[in-house]
């Protein structure tokens, strides 16, 4: 799953390295347009629907927080 998420991220922002240990939001790797694309891509790839209340910055700071959020929906 980690690889799939990294693949989605690198399609959205090809010029960025998402394997670095940084906060995606604070480092400016993802902006608001990217989040919209990311949410859509995650929903299609893993076939589930994210609740609006989960679309908050803290769930998108790293690949780990994304995985943790997906876990809440039973996506492993």
């Amino acid at each position, binding site marked *: 799953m980690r690889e799939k998420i990294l693949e989605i991220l*690198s*399609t*959205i922002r*090809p*010029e960025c390295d998402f394997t670095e240990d940084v906060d995606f*939001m604070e480092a400016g790797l993802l*902006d*608001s*347009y*990217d*989040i*919209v*694309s990311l949410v859509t891509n995650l929903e299609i790839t893993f076939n589930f629907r994210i*609740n*609006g*209340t989960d*679309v*908050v*910055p803290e769930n998108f700071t790293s690949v780990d927080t994304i995985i943790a959020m997906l876990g809440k929906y039973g996506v492993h």
Partner: protein
Amino acid sequence: MKVSLIELFEETVRKYPEKTAVIDKDRTINFADLHKQALQIAAKIIRLGVGQNRPVGLFLDKSIESVYANLGILYAGDFYMNLDIKTPAERIRNILQLTEPAVIISTSRQVKPIAAIIPDTVQMILLDEEAWDEEVDAQQVTRRLSSIIDTDPSCIINTSGSTGTPKGVVLNHKSFFDFIDWAIDTFHFGDDLVMGSLSPIVFDIYSFELCMLMAKASTLVVLPAHLAAFPAKILEVLEQHQVNFLFWVPTIMVNIANMDLLSAFKLDSLQTVWFAGEVFPTKQYNYWHHHLPQTTFANLYGPIEITLDCTYYIINKEIPDEQPLPIGYPCRNTDILVLDDEDRLVSQPHVEGELCVRGTSLAMGYYNNPEKTAAAFVQNPLNKAYPETIYRTGDIVCYDEEGLIIFKGRKDNIVKHMGYRTDLGEIEHVIINTLKLVKNGCIVYNQAEKQITLFYEAEQEIQAAEFRLQIGKVLPKYMIPTAFHRLDQLQRNANGKIDRLFYKKQVNK
């Protein structure tokens, strides 16, 4: 009699010096302090030797600083041109070449990405590098304003142009007076508006919010741009500051509806919601209306060239999901002419024509661009007696049985995407001519998915990531296509031209 928007501000400052003018995260500023800061900016511009009626660029994110800098530019008797700090340097270069601003106001941090491309002739004011300790002679500043007339520009707003360089729409003071007078009269706005400001500073909506701040002591609550993707956070801020007025583009309102967030946030204070800039699907509008039955909703319509909006519809009846929301009736002191292909006036219901506008609201034209100005701002074909300019919007509309105007589509290749007016021809131009990524291509818009889609001819597929990387160097992010389709050969029409209509139909099946 008032001729400059700043005169409205002066009155407000006298009446409400202690009232909060701007809330920017955990900082606030009152009207008296905002006034002081604006005068400092004006005095600095004057000290630099800048004459009146000159464009001054602003390269800042939306903040307390951007608000007082905009007011300071007006105080100096000049006009502001706000620039998007996220726009690639190349595009900023094109805008600067066309407009040749006298000064750019920014900060040492924010100016970095464009520092190398700013021409030597442009003077800089970096807010964090100035001492701001000089005594300002307020009377000297306001004296300078006395020679301004109401047809002098107040701002330039840039909009997408098919040749790769944006067009700078020049708006004067008078047209803003016209619009805010209509707004205040029609919606009975008092001195208690708290505006949830989401639009970037380059949008005309932000300029309207500035006007309301000046005219009615409205409080502007900055909703940080980086939260735009997180509607739940935005709604939290609206509740926290008891925002009672929103003027938004529908994109985020659709997201909020699709995420069913109004079940979690009650927005009890919200009295008036305006939306404009693109079509708001009725289904998602109905979601808002049903959750906020006490709130007044109005659908506004208009291109930047007529100062904000020229028609409106206060929605006061149930509209079934499958029917479009009307764009309504002309605003007061604005005349709408619907003209058919032969410039005859259309008045029968369901007959389509181009929406044209007559009135004080018209822009002065496009900055340094007489050809484009002459093509869009034309003599009223129904008036042969004296010179009278109308603006041709390129929007196709019709009347319904009740005389309400219904938006049908565009004459050309322009779409509204995420609130931005986007000329698909400009994206094609960049991909094919500027970057030479493909030899032939055609951009169409998928209305349902809100996707800019590229069909291109190439022997081998080009990775989406590669397209995004290259195009992102020249165009802002909202203009980058999100769907790419390779073909050996693009469909051609009888004249041998790429059959755009075919692809348009294909993605909108």
